[in-house]
Every structure is written in C-alpha cells, then in structure tokens.
C-alpha cells in the first residue's frame, strides 16, 4: 500500500534518512523500531508530507506522492499521529475532533456518527468533550490525537511513539487500543521505542539506526533475534 | 591578527576609494546637479551605514532611525542659525537658548551626540522586545519624535519650515564623514560587541544561554546607529539650509530602508553599494518623471513613480535574494579570497 524506495531526507547539511526502503501492505501493522535519533519521526513526517524528501520515492496505492503536501496526503487517506502529541490546546475536545473530520465537513450526519464511534472507542473523551484539550492528561491527549486522526476516515494510520512519556498502565491501554484498531482492518505504521510492546502487536518490523534500515523481518524474527538490544545501544 | 586587520582595512579602503572616485568625477564634470547628487549620496551613506550598524547586526528593523536624523538636524540648526536671523527663524525660541551657538562642524557632531543621548535614554526598555513588538515600538518612537518636532515650536518652529542654517556642507566634507562612518561601522561590526550582537541576531535563545546580555548589546548598537543618524541629519541640514519636520518621516525612512535592503543589511559593503545603486536608479527615474511632465504625455503631474519602482525592487530583492546584493562577505573578504585563490 505504501512503498518507499531509497528515501533520503536532509536537515540542511545533515542527512537524517539515508537510502531507506520500506513497504506496508494493506491491513498490515508494521512497526519501525530504533533508538532516539535513528530517524524514525523524520520518516513519518516525510510520509505525511510535512518534510520534503531530498531523494527517493514514496508511492501510495500506486500513486507517486513524494512531493505531496500534508493536506493532499490526508485526502489520499493517510492520517498522521505525531510524536509531539499535537492536540490544539485552546480548542475543546469536540472542536479537535471536528477538525479531524475537516475533509468530510459537508457530510454532517456522517461526521456525527464518526464522532459517536470514536467516543465509544475512547469513553474518556466523551466525559471531557467540552474541556479544552490542553487541560487533558498525557494519556487522554494521546487518545484524542488518535481519535482525531480516525475522524478523517484514513486507510493508513501513522502512529509516532504513542506510548512516549505515558504511565505503564496507560501504555497498556494504548496498545490494547492499537490491537482493536488493527482488528477493524485499518493499515497501521507504528514507530516505537518500546520494542517489546510494539512487536507483540506488529506483523512485521524494521529496525533503524542512524538514519538507515539495518534489520527487517517478521515481528517474531525480530523479537527472537538476540542482538536487538545491541542495535538500540548503537553497538 | 594582522591578517584580519588587513582584510578590514581593505574593505574600508575599497569603499572609501569608491567615494573618492565620486568626488573626483564630480570635480572633473563640474556640473552643479551632479555635485548635489553626489553630496546627497554621501549623506545617505552616513544614514544607511548608521542603520546597518543596528539593523544588520541585531536583525531588528528600526523605524526610529530617521527620527534621530531629525534630532541631529534640529540640534545643529539651534546652534548655528545666526543671531540676527533667530528672531525670524525661531520666533518662539526659549530665551535661555538664544545665546547658544557653535561652529557648524562642531554643531553637526553635537547633533549626533544629542541624538545618541536621546536614543540611550528612551530605548533601553524597547531592546527587551523581540520580533514584531520591537519593530512596532520603534515605529511608535518615530511617531513620538515626529510629533515632538511637529509641535515643539519653541525649538523647531513647529510644522513650518525652519531656515537660516549656514550652508557649509560640501562634497569633500560629506565624503570625509561618510568614510569615517564606514570605518566606525566596520570597526563596530568586527568588535566583540558587534560579534555578540550578531550572535543574538542569529539565535537569540542560544545567545542568552551563553550569557550574552541581549538588551544591552542591542542598546549599544542602537546608540551608535542614532549617533550616525544625528550626524547625517546635521550634514543634511547644513546642505539644504531649510527643512520642516515632514522631511524626517516615512517617505525618507522608506528610501533609506530600501537602500539598505537592496544592498544587503548584513554588510557595510552592501549598505554602501545600495546607496549608489538606488541613487543612480532614483535620479534616472526622476529625470524620466521630469521629461514625462514637460512632454505632458499624461494629463496630470507624474509623481511617485520612483517610489513605486523602488518598492517593487525591494520586494523582488527580498523574494529572490533575501540577504540583498551583498549578503555576507565584505569586499575586503572577497578580495582576500580572490588573492588566495590565485596563489592557489
């Protein structure tokens, strides 16, 4: 579904992503693992169109989307949940969700139905729907960002470090939810530092190090390989 | 170190050479209009280089610059209008000021000092602001200065034209002052302070983390800039002999700013080059306006074309070459670079 070939991304003179190739098939949950600074978030932002590739190619459903703008990518069906957990802090929970459905704004009834669906998925959001998003806890904000992404009715969900900085019980909830989402048939690309958790839900995995993909394979293979921690430590 | 000195001396020498050439051509041609244009050009070099020492080093746009030019012009006028003319030129003058007098040259420099002192007194709080707020308050400062000039008739003769300044400004004098301004501005830029100021320009947060007192650094740059503006104002006052407050407002600001932006605010070379280019373009366009007006091709007077052209050029330069024509390397650096390359 997503096909990335020989991707290069630069910040000025620094090559953050070097010659990365990666693919995600329909209905799959693929995870990208790696230490801080491995280029995972850069990869996600580039797919979402927020960063420009310096070289290589990204296709989605057979269409070349390498140079597409962020607003185009959502239209094509790719929803991004950034690591920075970008809720709009001054907007209420409901306003955040409405904005997630920006593309479908003329379909009022459909948006209302979607909104009910995500509130069922995340009952906490229903409780806090008229609260400003900035006042939510970290876990709730993470739920909101995911819920908001779902409001655009995506084919592919890009999840960047959803467990970052959350309490262990909340992390468990988030992964439980990812499992549920996968069951609905949506395609997911998941970036994580919490490799153990990610590999439990993923079908396949890529490991990145200093901007390059160093290992790839099925989730079981990667989980079984003994040098995983070595890769993390940069060994 | 001596090598560094060399590089900067080269810059100053090249730019002064340009001024010297202007003076020579002016004497060779010996046409009054040309001399007038050349003199105005040198005064504008003082003004633009002055603006560069604040704006180029700190990255903050200042609208107040022209206000300080006015301060210099009025100060110098107060000190030099001959006693027998004071009654007419400044009918409301405070009695205690009637005795003030200085030689024109001294008065011009005192005008710079008064401008610098006023800048020092009012601007410190403004230097804490950044970005938009800093620019807007400098704009407010220009309005304050303008309002005062416009209404303090005891000292400025109010909105009416103030006349009677001895016309002592000659081309050689302005060229010398312009050369001095270039040297001072370059010395400031390459001094410890100038380097600190540029550090705050490039990354304010990092500069603060390094312990640089940003407001103080900016403040000192602002004072230097006001000093040069004041001197430029005095020179101009003694060149035209009479003026009113509206000479020191947005139209003039726009021209000075245009020269700096087109030349390149980051370098003295750019500032000087900007003055030359814009002056040349302006004078040709003005000639065109005059021709159009005398040929009566249009029903009304053709005015404002020069400003419109300058405005479009500024937008074009900022869009295509944001750092101006000479963005980072002074001419001295370029020459040294060339020599090195040749030596291989």
């Amino acid at each position, binding site marked *: 579904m997503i096909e990335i070939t020989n991707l290069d991304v630069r910040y000025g003179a620094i090559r953050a992503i070097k010659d990365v190739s990666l693919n995600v098939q329909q209905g799959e949950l693929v995870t990208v693992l790696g230490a801080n600074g491995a280029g995972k978030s850069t990869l996600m932002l580039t797919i979402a169109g927020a960063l420009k590739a310096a070289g290589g190619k990204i296709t989605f459903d057979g269409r070349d989307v390498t140079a597409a703008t962020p607003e185009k990518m959502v239209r094509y069906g790719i929803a991004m949940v950034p690591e920075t957990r970008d809720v709009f802090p001054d907007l209420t929970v409901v306003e955040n969700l409405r904005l997630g459905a920006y593309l479908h704004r003329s379909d009022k009834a459909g948006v209302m139905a979607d909104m009910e669906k995500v509130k069922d998925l995340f009952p906490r959001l229903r409780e806090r729907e008229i609260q400003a998003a900035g006042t939510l806890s970290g876990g709730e904000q993470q739920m909101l960002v995911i819920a908001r992404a779902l409001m655009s009715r995506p084919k592919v969900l890009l999840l960047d470090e959803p467990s970052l900085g959350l309490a262990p019980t909340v992390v468990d909830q988030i992964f439980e939810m990812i499992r549920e989402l996968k069951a609905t048939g949506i395609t997911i690309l998941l970036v994580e530092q919490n490799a153990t958790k990610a590999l439990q839900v993923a079908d396949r995995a890529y490991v990145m190090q200093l901007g390059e993909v160093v290992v790839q394979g099925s989730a079981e293979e990667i989980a079984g390989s003994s040098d995983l921690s070595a890769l993390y430590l940069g060994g | 170190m001596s090598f560094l000195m060399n590089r900067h001396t080269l810059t100053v020498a090249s730019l002064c050479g340009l001024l010297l050439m202007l003076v020579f051509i002016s004497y060779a041609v010996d046409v009054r209009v040309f001399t007038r244009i050349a003199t105005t050009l040198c005064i504008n070099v003082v003004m633009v280089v002055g603006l560069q020492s604040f704006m180029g080093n700190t990255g903050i746009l200042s609208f107040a610059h022209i206000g300080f030019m006015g301060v210099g012009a009025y100060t110098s006028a107060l000190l030099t209008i001959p006693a027998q003319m004071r009654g007419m030129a400044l009918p409301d003058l405070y009695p205690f000021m009637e005795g003030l007098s200085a030689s024109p040259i001294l008065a011009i420099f005192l005008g710079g000092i008064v401008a610098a002192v006023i800048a020092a007194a009012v601007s410190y709080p403004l230097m804490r602001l950044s970005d938009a707020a800093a620019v807007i308050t400098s704009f407010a400062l220009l309005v304050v200065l303008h309002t005062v000039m416009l209404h303090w008739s005891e000292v400025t003769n109010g909105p009416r034209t103030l006349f009677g300044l001895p016309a002592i400004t000659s081309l050689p004098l302005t060229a010398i002052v312009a050369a001095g301004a270039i040297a001072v501005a370059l010395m400031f830029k390459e001094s410890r302070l100038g380097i600190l100021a540029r550090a705050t320009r490039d990354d304010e947060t990092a500069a603060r983390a390094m312990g640089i007192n940003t407001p103080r650094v900016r403040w000192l740059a602002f004072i230097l800039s006001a000093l040069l503006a004041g001197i430029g104002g005095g020179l101009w006052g003694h060149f035209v002999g009479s003026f009113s407050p509206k000479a020191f407002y947005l139209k003039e600001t726009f021209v000075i700013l245009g020269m700096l932006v087109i030349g390149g605010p980051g370098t003295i070379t750019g500032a000087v080059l900007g003055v030359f280019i814009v002056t040349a373009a302006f004078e040709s366009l003005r000639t065109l306006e005059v021709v159009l007006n005398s040929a009566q091709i249009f029903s009304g007077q053709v005015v404002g074309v020069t400003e419109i052209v300058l405005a479009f050029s500024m937008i074009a330069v*900022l869009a295509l070459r944001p750092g101006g024509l000479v963005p980072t390397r002074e001419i001295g650096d370029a020459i040294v670079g060339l020599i090195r390359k040749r030596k291989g």
Partner: protein
Amino acid sequence: MTELIQFVIDVLALGGAYALMALGLVIVYGILKLVNFAYGELIMVAGYTLFLMDGTGLPWLVMAAVAVLMSIFFGVATDYVAFRPVRAKSVTAVLITSFAFSTILQNAALLFISPRARNIPLPDVFSTTVTIGGAVTPLRNLLTIAATIVMLTLFTWLMRRSILGIAMRAAATNFTMARMLGVPANLIISSAFAISGLLAGVVSLFWLGRIGSVVPGIGLEPLLVAFIATVIGGMRSVPGAVLGGFLLALIDTSLNHILPQDLLKFRDAFTFSFVILILLWKPDGLIKGPASGQRT
C-alpha cells in the same frame, strides 16, 4: 453626569473602531506570526472607492458595500504581493515588503488620483446628532458602537462555530498539524486576510465618516492605532486586541480631557510614551495569546 455619558460614548465609539482595527491585524499575525504594514492602506482603498463612486447615484449602502469589498480584495492582494514571495523568511522581510506594498498603494493614489484630499459621499445620518441623558453626541458614534457589537458577535460566531473558524484557531497554534488534518494552508491564510480586509473596510466607513475626505496618507493613523492596541493587548491574543483597542481609546480620550491646551498637541507623544511604559511592565502585552506555534 452628562459629561460622564459623553465620555463613555466617546470611549466606546473610538474604542470600537480601534478594537476592530486591532483585530484585523491580530488575525493575520496569529496565523502567520507576521505583521502587515500595508494594513492601513485598506482604509485608503475603501475611501477612494467611495470617492470614485460619488455621483454614480447608487444608494450609499451599496457604495459602502463595494468599498468594503474592495478593502477585502486588497487585503487578500496584500498576501499575494507582499507576503507570499517572502513568507517564512523573517518578520523583518515581510515588514519591509508590506511597507513597500503600502508605498505602492499610496503612490498609486498620488499618481492616478491626487495628492490633495478628496471628499467622499456620506449619508445624512452621519451628520445628525442625538441627545442621550443630556449629552449631545453624533449619531455616527452610536452607529460605530452598534457596528462594533455586530462585528464582534459575527467574529466570535465565526471563530467558535464554523469549521473554518476552528481551523483558523488551530492553525494559529500549530499550522503544520492543521495541514496534516487536511486544512489547506492557502485557504486559511487567504481567509485571514479577507477577514482582516472586512474589518478594516467596516472601520473605514466610520473612520472616513468622521473626517469626510480621503488623502493618500490616511492609513497611517489607523495602522498605528492597530499596532499599538495589539502590542498593549498581546500580539497574538484576540481578546487582547479588543482590550488593547478600548484601552488605547480610554487613554486617548482621557488625555483629551486632562491635558491643557498647549500640551494637547503632543497627545500622541504622551499616548505612545504610556504604551512604552506598559511594555516595560509587561513585555508580552496584557493578555498572553494561545500556546505558541512555530512560524510556517
């Protein structure tokens, strides 16, 4: 008592116009973090539009509507001429290009119309006065207050209820994220400039109505007012802009009453010195805006 009523009406009418002007500046600044120096010229554009339509025999309200439309048009044009070519470069660059655009508009007026003041058509209601509680006041003042209330209500409704308004508020804090939800950047920016033009256009009717004529330099004072009000209120805060507008009007009107005649001519100098004092105390303005977003 009469004097108090008079004073309150003056402050509210002046403050309303100031607040709407400031709002138009903040709406663009909030989203782009860039200042529009050509904003005052929208008043000039509206004024010359009225002047050019004088004698066409159209009803005044139609002429006013066309003037507001022209203000909106030139507001959006500012984006294309001054902002887009240099966007994302720096605050300074955009200030200079918008200053340049302002010069272009002013000199175009100078060149094609006249450097001298031109009278504009005004309806009779603008010159009638009414008596409220013993205070005699121009009806125009009450109309300004009414227009302020209508515009502020409309603005609030737009920002709170419409999806475009929500998107604009979102873009003001995090433009990239808003785009990643499918909100088109250009639509948001153009809308901000259009709203800015609408506000300036509406203000222009009352501003020009007070003076009765238009000159090329007419935009300077409203621009300054908007600048100062936003700096006092907090550059990125919408309530701050409104508060700043009314506060500035309060300062101006009070100075009109307090200052002796020979100092009154220095009123602007006093006002701006006062503003500098406020900034000494609160460098970010009175109301902090929404969480900061990076420039796009």
